[in-house]
């Protein structure tokens, strides 16, 4: 492993000194970091900052969500589609604790986010004051970094560090807790961007020897398989990645968070790996002679039983985070560094190849999956509507140009399996944490960051009701997101497991749902409900043609299952087709 390189702290002055309050300094820091929108919810301990936001409202747009969790997911959606740092703000106590789910989600999915919380005045710390909670302690295990500010003079340096840490290397969430007295205190404000921290080496230097070993293995391989993850997207390495796989002719599969880094229709794209991924890349993981992992972390949902995962193959692991090397799967060659730099260095060493026979195996297994699963999902002949045909209808209209924001559960697996993507950063979903309620607020953030793109939230009837109050945010901001609820009146994924593994004992999974269209209309959001196949095409077209936000409820079959499936603890090659 390469030794940590230490970087001298170099700072560049961008805002010169003036005497202002801590609260105003916070807003000026955000502006200096290029923040144009933030999501949050006011309260006692953060009021001085909100008072400044009022004054600066022409320069920075604060979006009032209906719950602090919604603020974090909106900030995440904003970050995931734009690559910029998302910002969320809340007051102390319950405001701060409500951020935790979103922070944990951002941590496990490596999403750059800065959360700013108000805190009781420093003389009250530890006294169990009103709305006091130890948010730094609570958030420690789920943040990349966190810090409490008790003096105004600390604000510029700490916020500069927060943005630098959130975005650099493997991104993640940072929480800055600021006591109310530090917000009120006046000081000489000067802002310098942070460009390095002595103890922190976000991007290990690429080792030329590792690149050459990797190239040798790739050039010698007869049956290579690439599995890429979000590292390609976070590292903005899409072009370098495409050049590498095209030159070496390697079939390439994606993790759920890697989706859209390579166009769905690219001939080398062989689909998704993992529990509900595609049949060919899962099964052939246990037949390849070389597994090339790029910016992915061998999550258990990807690997199934590690003891039976790609044991026959040599493994190359391209990864920016040294702690991921050998964590789950032992790497024969580890290439540390950013995907962009590593893949650019790798390209000239690669031989041109096509691996035609090996490709044929993917096509053959795709044909099997198509017959047994895909055809039934996308072009069903039975009466009930399937989730897959809804996604297919959306594909036909958007032609793969939309960003799809999915929640968690069956609809998420179907959306990720079948959505077509032409552009990177188009699949926004809660992968690692599996946070129900993610999609609606995340779609708000995504649409605000990319107003020119169609942003479609695909949500189940369960998850929708976890953050349904964000319809209020949509109404108030008029953000034109499209909301599709695939309603099977069940917590579908849990019900599927109950059917398959718990003898159909459907404990607490059936939902008696309200009139969703009426609720949307209560927020003045246009919408309709579809119950028949014949209505689907027209309804999707109407949704896409609508200028404003739109709500579409599709009543799908109640007891549909997602296949293929790797049951928990099984090997990737034991994937079930039914």
């Amino acid at each position: 492993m390469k030794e940590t390189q230490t970087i001298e702290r170099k700072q560049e002055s961008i805002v010169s000194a003036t005497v202002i309050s801590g609260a105003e300094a916070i807003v000026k820091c955000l502006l200096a970091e290029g923040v144009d929108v933030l999501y949050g919810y006011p309260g006692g301990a953060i009021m001085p900052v909100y008072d400044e936001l009022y004054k600066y409202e022409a320069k920075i747009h604060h979006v009032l969500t209906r719950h602090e969790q919604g603020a974090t997911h909106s900030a995440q959606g904003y970050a995931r589609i734009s690559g910029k740092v998302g910002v969320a703000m809340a007051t102390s106590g319950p405001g701060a604790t409500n951020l935790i789910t979103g922070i944990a989600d951002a941590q496990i999915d490596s999403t750059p986010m800065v959360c700013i919380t108000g805190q009781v005045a420093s003389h009250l710390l530890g006294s169990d004051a009103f709305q006091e909670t130890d948010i730094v302690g609570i958030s420690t295990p789920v943040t990349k970094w966190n810090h409490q500010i008790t003096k105004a003079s600390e604000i510029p340096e700490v916020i500069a560090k927060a943005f630098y840490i959130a975005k650099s290397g493997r991104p993640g969430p940072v929480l800055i807790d600021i006591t109310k007295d530090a917000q009120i205190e006046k000081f000489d404000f000067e802002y310098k961007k942070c460009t390095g921290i002595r103890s922190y080496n976000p991007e290990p230097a690429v080792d030329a020897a590792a690149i050459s070993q990797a190239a040798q293995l790739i050039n010698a391989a007869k049956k290579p398989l690439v599995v890429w993850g979000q590292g390609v997207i976070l590292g903005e390495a899409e072009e370098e990645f495409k050049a590498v796989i095209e030159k070496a002719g390697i079939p390439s599969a994606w993790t759920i968070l890697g989706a859209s880094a390579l166009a769905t229709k690219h001939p080398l794209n062989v689909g998704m790996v993992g529990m509900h991924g595609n049949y060919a890349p899962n099964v052939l993981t246990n037949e390849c002679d070389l597994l090339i992992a790029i910016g992915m972390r061998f999550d258990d949902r990807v690997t199934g039983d590690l003891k039976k995962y790609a044991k026959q193959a040599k493994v190359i692991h391209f990864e920016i985070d040294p702690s991921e090397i050998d964590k789950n799967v032992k790497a024969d060659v580890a290439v540390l560094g950013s995907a962009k730099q590593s893949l650019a260095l790798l390209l000239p060493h690669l031989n041109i190849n096509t691996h035609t026979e090996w490709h044929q195996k993917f096509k053959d297994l795709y044909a099997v999956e198509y017959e047994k699963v895909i055809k039934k999902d996308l072009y069903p002949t039975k009466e009930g509507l399937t989730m897959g045909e809804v996604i297919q209808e959306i594909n036909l209209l958007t032609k793969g140009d939309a960003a799809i924001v999915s929640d968690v559960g069956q609809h998420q697996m179907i959306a990720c399996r079948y959505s077509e993507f032409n552009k990177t950063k188009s699949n926004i979903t809660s992968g690692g944490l599996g946070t129900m309620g993610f999609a609606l607020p995340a779609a708000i953030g995504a649409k605000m960051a990319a107003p020119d793109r169609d942003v479609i939230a695909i949500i189940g009837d369960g998850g929708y009701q976890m953050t349904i109050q964000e319809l209020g945010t949509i109404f108030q901001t008029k953000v034109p997101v499209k909301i599709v609820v695939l309603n099977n009146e069940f917590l579908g994924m849990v019900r599927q497991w109950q059917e398959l593994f718990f003898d159909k004992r459907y404990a607490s999974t059936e939902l008696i749902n309200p009139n969703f269209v009426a609720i949307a209309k209560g927020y003045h959001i246009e919408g309709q409900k579809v119950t028949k196949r014949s209505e689907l095409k027209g309804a999707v077209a109407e949704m896409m043609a609508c200028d404003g936000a739109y709500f579409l409820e599709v009543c799908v079959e109640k007891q549909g299952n997602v296949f293929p499936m790797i049951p928990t603890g099984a090997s990737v090659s034991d994937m079930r087709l039914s």
Partner: protein
Amino acid sequence: MSKKTNTYTVSVYTENNIGLLNRISAIFQRRHFNIESLNSSLSEIEGVSRFTIVVEMTEEQIKKIIGQIEKQVEVIKAYYHRDEDTIYQESCLFKIKSDLLFEERQIQNIIKESNARIVTVNKEYFVLEKSGRRIEIELLHRELSAFGILQFTRSGRIAVTKEPMEISQKLASIKQ
């Protein structure tokens, strides 16, 4: 890799920050590893703290733990060593009734033979300090137990490595 567990001494060089102890201990807690001892102090480098943590686990496990520790933004570098690669000591204090020092001649011999040091003596009690390996401290504890101990406490391990720590030269060369 071997499933055999060993005692490892983990040395973590860090920036001095209030929250870091929590971050580091949480790494062990989350994976259900018991920390046998943990000591935090200055290091040989000005402004850099050094944690000395003793844990029992397999080498595969300790490697992963080191990766997780080094991932923390304010950790400069973390190392792990086997006992044979370090010089390590613990320290302990015994508080004992002063009468015994004069009534039980044997105690004076025990103190002499164990290389323990009398820190203070007054009419009521005396305090004995002993630094050394765990086994020496345990032996002394057993011997003195027979006479009655008013209070006993033992520190965590502190250790230096036999080989040079490369961190020292590297960090020394960094201009703050």
